[in-house]
């Protein structure tokens, strides 16, 4: 295989199977690709349930799910991937300024997102399209940002899903402060399932180097705040691998801040669901923060502006294709008789419809009014902002007078 193969990954997943290359790949300089003995996994890449090695502590959360819930997870995974691939295609065709693909990280996000309750709040980075999906956000609101017609086209309060955050790590402090507010509202540890509230804040492996991330751990730790720090370790911070960001595993850092840290197989939706559920329940009960490191892989480029062939081998990508989060889950659902061919076909058809509607809505999405540049800079009017608004209006009108506009 050549390095150029990496460019193919945005075209879609490859079904799971035995990786006969794995032993040679592991001997490469970057070290082992598996998540190590502490990684919690409930479903292995072959689609077999794992019943030991930590799985037994979390299995009851999966046992409590109905077949309908599980089919719902599958639908989420497939639709989110399809939406993401369509968005990448739209960017390639010039309809979006940028897209940030979540390809390969669907199970991390769907498992986590489905462990949230309506009253919980998410503080995302900029790749959390799967969380947005679980929070009921119309995907077009994400498209609006990356098309360049809006910045945050939703009300964070309405969805419990806060603004996408591009400055790495800022959102962890916002989430921690939000959780401190939850504590002051008394919405922790009441035992009322509809009242007790937790926050989940998202980051990638690169973000763990940021001061804000470490400060968030300090503030959440000393305040026992109801927050789960959810780190998707997708192995790459644009071009820099884990070893350029850290000397000890991410999940082990939590110990130094005084709360639990866990590594979970981020390509196993059952594991990400169960572990997040456990930690969110814990937070809502007033037992404080935790850190979850979801061990996953960024199958596509960092963004559509990135070229990963410059810094990583296609062999690595090929190896991770064999751990695909959707393939293993599909295998398991079929084997357990939870879903059949007709169900899978129906989901594929729904995915096609979603992609088609996203495409249609994107290409017809209007540009914002230029005057909106000045809207909502402040709540109360600001003299200098309004002066500029008036100036631009008059300037624009001067062209209309000349019949130019």
């Amino acid at each position, binding site marked *: 295989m050549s390095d150029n193969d990496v460019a193919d990954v945005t075209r879609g997943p490859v079904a799971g199977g035995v990786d006969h290359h794995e032993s040679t790949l592991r001997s490469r300089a970057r070290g082992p690709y598996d998540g190590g003995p502490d990684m919690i996994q409930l479903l292995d890449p072959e689609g077999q349930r794992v019943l030991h090695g930590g799985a037994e502590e979390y299995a009851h959360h999966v046992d409590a799910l109905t077949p309908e819930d599980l089919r719902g997870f599958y639908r989420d995974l497939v639709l989110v991937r399809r939406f993401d691939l369509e968005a990448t295609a739209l960017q390639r065709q010039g309809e979006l300024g940028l897209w940030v693909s979540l390809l390969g990280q669907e199970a991390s996000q769907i498992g986590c997102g489905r462990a949230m309750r309506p009253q919980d709040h998410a503080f995302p980075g900029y790749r959390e399209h799967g969380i947005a999906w679980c929070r009921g956000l119309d995907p077009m609101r994400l498209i609006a940002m990356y098309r360049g017609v809006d910045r945050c086209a939703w009300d964070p309060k309405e969805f419990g899903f806060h603004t996408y955050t591009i400055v790495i790590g800022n959102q962890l*402090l916002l989430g*921690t402060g*939000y959780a401190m507010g*939850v504590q002051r*509202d008394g919405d922790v540890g009441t035992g009322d399932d509809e009242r007790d509230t937790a926050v989940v804040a998202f980051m990638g492996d690169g973000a763990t180097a940021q001061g804000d991330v470490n400060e968030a751990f300090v503030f959440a730790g*000393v305040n026992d705040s109801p927050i789960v720090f959810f780190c998707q370790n997708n192995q790459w911070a644009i071009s820099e691998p884990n070893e350029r960001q850290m000397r000890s595993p991410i999940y082990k850092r939590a110990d130094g801040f005084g709360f639990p840290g866990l590594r979970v197989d981020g390509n196993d939706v059952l594991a990400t669901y169960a572990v997040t559920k456990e930690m969110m329940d814990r937070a809502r009960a007033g037992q404080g923060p935790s850190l979850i490191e979801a061990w996953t892989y960024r199958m596509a480029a960092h963004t559509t502006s990135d070229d990963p062939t410059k810094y990583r081998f296609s062999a690595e990508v090929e190896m991770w294709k064999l751990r695909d989060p959707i393939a293993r889950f599909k295998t398991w659902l079929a084997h357990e008789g939870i879903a059949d061919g007709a169900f899978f076909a129906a989901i594929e058809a729904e995915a096609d419809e979603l992609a088609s509607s996203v495409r249609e809505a994107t290409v017809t999405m209007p540009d914002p009014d230029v005057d909106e540049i000045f809207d909502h800079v*402040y709540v109360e009017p*600001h003299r200098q902002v309004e002066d500029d608004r008036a100036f631009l209006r008059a300037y624009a009108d001067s062209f209309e007078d000349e019949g130019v506009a």
Partner: protein
Amino acid sequence: MAAQRMTIAKALNAGLRRAMEKDPKVVLTGEDIGKLGGVFRITEHLQKDFGEDRVIDAPLAESGIMGTAIGMALRGYRPVVEIQFDGFVYPAFDQIVSQLAKLHSRTRGQIRVPVVVRIPMGGGIGAVEHHSESNEAYFAHTLGLKVVFCSNPTDAYWMIQQAIESDDPVIFFEPKRRYHERGEVDLDLAPTLDLYSARTVREGTDVTIACYGPMVKTCLDAAAVAADEGRSLEVIDLRSVSPLDIDALAGSVTKTGRLVVVHEASSFAGFGAEIAAEVTERCFHSLEAPVLRVTGWNAPYPPSKVEEHFLPDLDRILDGVDRSLAY
């Protein structure tokens, strides 16, 4: 309640107390503000009276303090952050510029971030490095923030309450060298001025002096001396640098034809440059002289033994007036 004589420090403390009494969502957060009452004692006794949940002794991390304050605001609180000294705000600068200033516009007004950031600013107290800075221009340059200065006890008492009531984020500069200067404060007489209006603190006819924060008193002193010399200075306390009450300033300059801007910060790309540009545009035909600036020198803040040579003082202000009148 009759007017009371109190310091700026006590007036701020009383203003914070009153805001906390009026609105249970007001919370204070910062370093050493609880048990100690802050290094300047601005929050003295407030933790004792309002509890540790509302007066938070935060970990020593300014970005953390700022970011969590924004987060609390997103939950519906009205946090008031104390930055211990002007020179310590920079770790929080990212959160202020990237999040605090922009969240309202990014969400098309769907969320509000009513956070007040109190910063004791300026020099003249014989302090070590990073304790004497005037960094207002960084914040004024960031649209989405409002940036105000109090200069006397009455404004300290009322402006801090107005800032807390504002639904916009406010950077609230306090003139630390004036903390212990006294003045009459009527705790019940609500102010006639809003938070963003300039005030003419001395009327005059020859030269307009624009100033804010700790320089207001210095400028008033200079105006008193100038009066003895037969020169009539009009002193305007801008109070807010963002938004800038340009009408008040332009009105005065139209009358006097001359403007000297006074601030402690260096002149180069300082706020005085903005004033000079705005006033020149609006008052070009009234101006008898270029807008002049009397400011800290274009150099980093010096060791305290020579800070008196760095900061604008009465003589340098009068020199600026002389230079303006010489045109």
